[in-house]
């Protein structure tokens, strides 16, 4: 496969016809070399131990076509729509240029990465590929190696964008592969909410490999919602890198409802003092679905706060993996870090592997974590039923109660309603 990809990489680079000495070209080459050297995660790879993705990918997908995009997904309805939002459509990894009609908005700029290299060459050079470490994760490497476009968003400093930006990712590939890429710059004192909605059409397998780099400036506020609602033949790997400057705030919401195999690597780097990072996660998985959330928050400087709440409901033969790493460096005194992962297994065949990973090098730190895995509470179930509530309604009520403290954190009402309804459909 690597040989095939080497050939592809050459063809790809030539097809871009770009200046071979450009900064981006060097990044691609470095990334491809990293990928060629390491390949996909090996069976014993500690980071992917519970998610044996390589075998599944090599068995299911033909990498000879990478990364040539297939035609746009025409006529597919987005997962949800709200006229209030700013919409961008990304089909099989390709940004639909005609959906980028937002240039008239003065406080926010949305364009393809390719356009951005012309319009904002300094910014792109300073940030693109700077956070997405190609040595650490092979999927990040593969993504960077074949990157040439993607979504670029720049929020002008000291402005608050009231309308959420809604990025619709659709795939409808025929055992195909797509890669997508974001670079989001939230300048000093700016505020924005960005929703990524990942969905798949048709009924054949698809692998989407997504990378986002998000730079949150001093005193800025970023809300990142990620809705993963693909179908049961979808493989999806997400690598998100968030870098926060001083006094900034970032909230991420990783909401996973459907997919065959999903791996999320969420990385926070708290680069300066007084940052606040909140990670909320919710996964409701069924059948043979497999959802793996790896989060990593790197406390580099003092007085930052990180807070993580992930909750999961696993049904049928679903598998879940949670790995939450909190890294507190020596300089990061007065760090306050909290982490919690709670799971409900609805069957004997569902399973979860949950592991906190704390590495603390500073001494004045307040850190707590906890994880629980269990069934529904029999006493609560009986109480509700004894009042005349059917077993299925009672189960749904308790599951709703379980997920509610994460759901209630979703501040965008149309998104909250959509997810609430989707979850109700699943639980009732």
């Amino acid at each position, binding site marked *: 496969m690597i040989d095939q990809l080497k050939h592809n990489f050459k063809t790809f680079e030539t097809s871009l016809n770009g200046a071979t000495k450009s900064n981006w070209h060097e990044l691609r080459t470095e990334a491809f070399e990293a990928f060629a050297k390491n390949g996909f995660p090996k069976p014993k790879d500690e980071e992917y131990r519970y998610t044996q993705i390589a075998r599944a990918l090599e068995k299911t997908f033909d990498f000879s076509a990478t990364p040539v995009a297939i035609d746009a997904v025409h006529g597919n309805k987005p997962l949800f729509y709200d006229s209030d939002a700013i919409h961008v459509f990304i089909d099989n990894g390709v940004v639909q240029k005609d959906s980028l009609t937002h240039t008239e908005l003065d406080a926010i700029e949305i364009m393809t990465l390719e356009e951005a290299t012309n319009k904002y060459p300094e910014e792109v050079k300073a940030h693109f590929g700077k956070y997405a470490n190609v040595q650490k994760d092979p999927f990040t490497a593969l993504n960077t190696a074949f990157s040439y476009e993607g979504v670029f968003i720049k929020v002008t400093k000291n402005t608050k964008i009231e309308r959420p930006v809604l990025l619709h990712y659709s795939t409808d590939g025929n055992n195909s592969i797509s890669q997508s890429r974001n670079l989001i710059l939230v300048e000093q004192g700016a505020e924005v909410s960005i929703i990524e909605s990942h969905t798949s059409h048709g009924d054949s397998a698809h692998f989407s490999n997504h990378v986002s780099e998000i730079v949150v400036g001093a005193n800025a506020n970023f809300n990142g919602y990620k809705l993963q609602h693909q179908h049961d033949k979808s493989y999806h790997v997400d690598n998100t890198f968030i870098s926060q400057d001083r006094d900034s705030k970032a909230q991420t919401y990783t909401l996973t409802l459907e997919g065959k195999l999903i791996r999320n690597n969420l990385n926070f780097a708290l680069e300066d003092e007084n940052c606040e990072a909140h990670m909320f996660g919710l996964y409701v998985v069924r059948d043979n679905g497999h959802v793996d959330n790896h989060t990593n928050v790197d406390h580099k400087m003092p007085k930052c706060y990180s807070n993580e709440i992930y909750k999961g409901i696993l049904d049928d033969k679903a598998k879940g993996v949670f790995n939450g790493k909190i890294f507190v460096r020596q300089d990061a005194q007065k760090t306050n870090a909290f982490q919690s992962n709670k799971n409900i297994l609805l069957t004997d065949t569902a399973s979860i592997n949950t592991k906190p990973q704390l590495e603390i090098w500073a001494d004045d730190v307040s850190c707590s974590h906890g994880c629980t895995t269990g069934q529904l509470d029999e006493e609560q179930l009986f109480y509700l039923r*004894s009042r005349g509530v059917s077993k299925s309604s009672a189960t749904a009520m308790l599951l709703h109660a379980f997920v*509610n403290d994460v759901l209630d954190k979703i501040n965008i009402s149309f998104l909250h309603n959509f997810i609430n309804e989707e979850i109700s459909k699943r639980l009732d």
Partner: protein
Amino acid sequence: MLSIKNLHAEIEGQQILKGINLEVKAGEVHAIMGPNGSGKSTLASVLAGREEYEVTEGEVTFLGKDILDLAPEDRAHEGLFLAFQYPVEIPGVSSNNFLRTALNQTREYKGLEPLDAVNFLKLMKEKMALVEIDQKLINRSLNEGFSGGEKKRNEIFQMAVLEPKLSILDETDSGLDIDALRIVANGVNKLKSPDNATILVTHYQRLLDHIVPDFVHVLYNGQIVKSGDKSLALELEDKGYDWIKEEVDATIS
């Protein structure tokens, strides 16, 4: 209304109920008293359909129907209500939503139209006044952070809303101060009618000063060992249970 014949039940292989016989007719109030651990709550749970308990012998008919094979929710739909000794807290489930679902699923079972939001609210207001419960409690998650007394009052409130045929109140009086006890007793008395019946599980005479029982039974070691009228409760208050235990133990040996 309720007929229990030779009821035996066990949990984790341990026999708790050892042949209970009890007849309850419409319009009656029965008190079940007895020392701790004698099986009163077990009896209540078995009647309500708790699956952890296994009925090994005997039968229970309620309004002419064998209920032992019914799911707990269907027993409730038939008109059975259990006010729990220890009501469980359910964070995240709103009292309102829960009660509305309970009520409407019961109505559906009976072939009635569901109550709409407006009429449901009206009913809630009316019943809240009846049992003197604060709206603030109802607005919270079910029993979450309630004091012992508030939980008991909430049980009676739910009973008022659901209007069961047979209510089993398992030590609803314990942990209540005099005022709360009076309010709960008032609520029960107001809900009493010739068509429904009440079983009060209690340790104390003081509840029976407010709700006067037609029959008093003593449950000891999984059996009803003595039955009488309200004077039996007074006698128990006076003399305790030891004389009954001795009587029973003497008959056995």
